[in-house]
């Protein structure tokens, strides 16, 4: 039996990788993928904690997170395509029409 702390630890590491990806990478698609890693870290934590607590709430939450992430991806990718059509770039640093 794998101890609970392993799952929570793995989820924390994944979450940190996602956060680092959002903060450090400059390609919008990669930033978006990093956000998805964060959400999957959350899912892992929910499933693991739900199992330890013997309650279904964690599992149910994962379903909602997954569906919401799908809807978010649909809208997000549409926005990214609109940006690319007008600007021909997916680099976050070049999207600076508005400053201060």
């Amino acid at each position, binding site marked *: 039996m794998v101890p609970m702390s392993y799952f929570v630890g793995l989820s924390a590491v994944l979450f940190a990788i996602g956060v680092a990806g959002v903060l450090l990478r400059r390609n919008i698609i990669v930033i978006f993928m990093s956000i998805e890693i964060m959400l999957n870290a959350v899912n892992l934590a929910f499933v693991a904690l739900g199992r330890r607590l013997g309650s279904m709430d964690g599992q149910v939450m994962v379903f909602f997170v997954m569906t919401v992430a799908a809807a978010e991806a649909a809208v*997000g990718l549409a926005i990214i395509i609109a940006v690319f059509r007008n600007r021909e770039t997916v680099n976050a640093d070049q999207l600076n029409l508005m400053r201060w």
Partner: protein
Amino acid sequence: MTQFNWSLINFAWLPILPLIVVAVGAMGVLLAGVQVDDEDSGALGILTIALLVFAAVLSLLLFGGRPSVAFSGALAAGGYTAYFDLLVLFAAAMTALMSVEYAADQGLAGAEYYALLMFAALGMMLMAAGDDLIVIFLGLETMSIAIYALAGFMRHDPRSNEAALKYFLLGAFSTGFLLYGIAFIYGATGSIKLEPIEAALSRPATDNALLLAGVGLLLIGFGFKIAAVPFHMWAPDAYEGAPTPVTAFMAVGVKAAAFAAFVRIFMVHLGPLGPQWTMVLWVMAGLTMTVGNLAALVQTNIKRMLAYSAIAHAGYILVGMTAAAAPRAGGAILYYLLGYAFTNLGAFTVVVALERRGAIHDNLADYRGLAARHPFLAAAMALFMLSLAGVPPLAGFFGKFYIFSAALDAHLLWLTIIAVINSVISAYYYLSVLIAMYVREGGVEPAALRTRPALIATLVIAAAGTVAIGLFPQPYITSAAGAFVSALGNAPHHHVVLSR
């Protein structure tokens, strides 16, 4: 094997009737609108407003109802939910009203625009009603996804694209923090519903480190949503680039809904942890007010200035939350949000009035000499600026007054001093709009108001509210305080006077 249960009797649908109206209405507008030409989307706007008003009337009927829970504790019904339902429905209806001529002029796709507006309102109502972190999360996302699309609604305008993209990336990023916070709180307390979470706080077995980590992550998530410093970076860009009516809705509706959930979770249910989280909020409130106001001073674009002003106002509301130990803090926050809604919707309506297809006119310089050409528009803008600055007897003044008094009740002397200094600083940039309109000359000639009755109606309603809520604050502060107490009524374990 259990018998199939054919009964429908236990279905408590009454508390969600306003939600059903908005949801069905949004889908109806979406399907009906596909047949309608974009250039005459005005009819869809009127239909949307009618549906929102109908839902608001239903919420009003539920306002006085006894606090109760529906859907096995997932949704709370009662004064608090109804108060915020009315607030966001009002904000959505006003946004639709100010959009009627704007959408036709800009050639926006009416069906999608108004349907998204209603879906966003639906999410906001869910956030206000959620007594369960799943429901609050679902409401938040229903609202956010609709608003992402609305912010990028002018898909051939690079500024609108950029606003949507930044709002989306930062919004999704903050959702991650919020969810991780929920996961930790769930792990520590064993529940995802707010009442059992509150009950678990007093159990010695509760894992405190996990719990506090969760509360901290939740604070970060909400900090992003209300654009509190240091999580505010997205707000100025998103506000500036989004279509102006959408900016108004973001500044008023999204903020109200985020605070509805924020206040319910923290002030109503996490009260026993007050000593821990108020410390963080103290710093956040001070930073948010100061950074928001100082940055607003140097803006030359009015939408960007109002964005920083919105950040600063979130800071004032955070002062109210920091004062959670004071019994009247909750009512003060709810009253503040009401006055702020009328004032801010009005201010953005003036910005909409100056806009025209292909000519945005959202620089401060465009407002020069407005008083000579459009005395009515200039007078309305002056009224809203004075209310935002907190000049008596307008709504903005009493909002600040109640919040600052609550802060003093909670012995937050230094934070109150910071807030008052900030109010004085903010007067500078609000008054500079007045000076541009009344003293300077030049600027732009907006399209005639005569041809835009819906815009005039929006301005009149906003101005009347700004004055009425300020001149006669008593009924409003009473219902605000009553609404907050009804949320406490939903929480059986609540300690009315929080320990400090």
